């Protein structure tokens, strides 16, 4: 059987529904480098189903944009069907690495207070290896996949 080693573990974060039920979310703290070279911490939901890092469209000022739909128009499949997204390139810092990667802005991503978008695969996942332990609410990460 294969054996993998991980240097880092990220605990899931616990949210409470209005009924007091715990919901555990695999959130990753990602720093976005803005065009003015400041760093903003964005909690993103770890999502192997997302092709690209995807942010809510209303975050466009962080990318130095005047509107969310200035970039490369792409069709993106979602649970609700195909929608238009706009793609940009930005630099992020995550798990100790600085990575230039595509970021899509999507207007249909639901508003949630604990995360601003999805940590998707393109470029970013190539840099790491992941182990997902739902039962213990842990995400394991290696920087040397």
């Amino acid at each position, binding site marked *: 059987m294969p054996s993998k080693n991980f*240097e*880092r573990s990220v605990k899931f*974060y*616990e*949210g*409470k*529904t*209005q009924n007091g*039920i715990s*919901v555990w*979310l695999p*959130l990753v*703290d990602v*720093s976005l480098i*803005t065009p003015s070279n*400041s*760093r*903003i*911490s*964005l*909690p993103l939901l770890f*999502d192997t*189903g*997302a*092709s*690209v890092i*995807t942010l*809510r469209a*209303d*975050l466009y*000022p*962080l990318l130095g944009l005047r509107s969310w739909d200035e970039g490369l128009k792409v069709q*993106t*499949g*979602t*649970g609700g069907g195909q929608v238009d997204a706009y793609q940009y390139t930005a630099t992020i*810092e995550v*798990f*100790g*690495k*600085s990575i230039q990667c595509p970021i899509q802005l*999507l207007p249909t*991503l*639901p*508003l*949630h*207070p*604990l*995360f*601003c978008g*999805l940590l*998707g695969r393109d470029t970013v996942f190539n840099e790491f290896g992941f182990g997902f332990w739902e039962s213990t609410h842990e995400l394991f990460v290696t*920087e040397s996949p």
Partner: protein
Amino acid sequence: MKLPVTTFEKIGDFKNVIESMSIEAQSPTEFLAALERIGIGSYVTEEGHLMIRYWQIGAEDFVPPEQASIIRTSRPLPDQGDNMDWLSKNLQTIRQEYGGKWVAVYNERIVASSSTLPDLMNQIEEYDRPLITLIPAGPVIWTFTYAL
């Protein structure tokens, strides 16, 4: 290990302490441990510079960036409480006060809020890596499927 520390002219005794430690330490890790032992907070930047808290004194090129990345993953970063954990644990209270607003969380407290993101960004220029999020005015949806 001799560090290229060049910015201590104005702080006399502290300079002597650091220079003494620079000579005695055998490695960057040992030097950081020595700082910690005498209660001086420090961290290593992405670029490998050593930063010392409160005085904001740096030793440029303390380690190469590759080594900085390794050191940074094993040591706490400055003023970085777990803002996400704090936000998740205090969400109910925060929603009552900040529902419908953008907020910036730093060091486990809300340091700025606004109804618009550009205005919030103007308020938080002095902070390094503040967490920002929009607090919903309505109920939070906890189950979702995206699959992009």
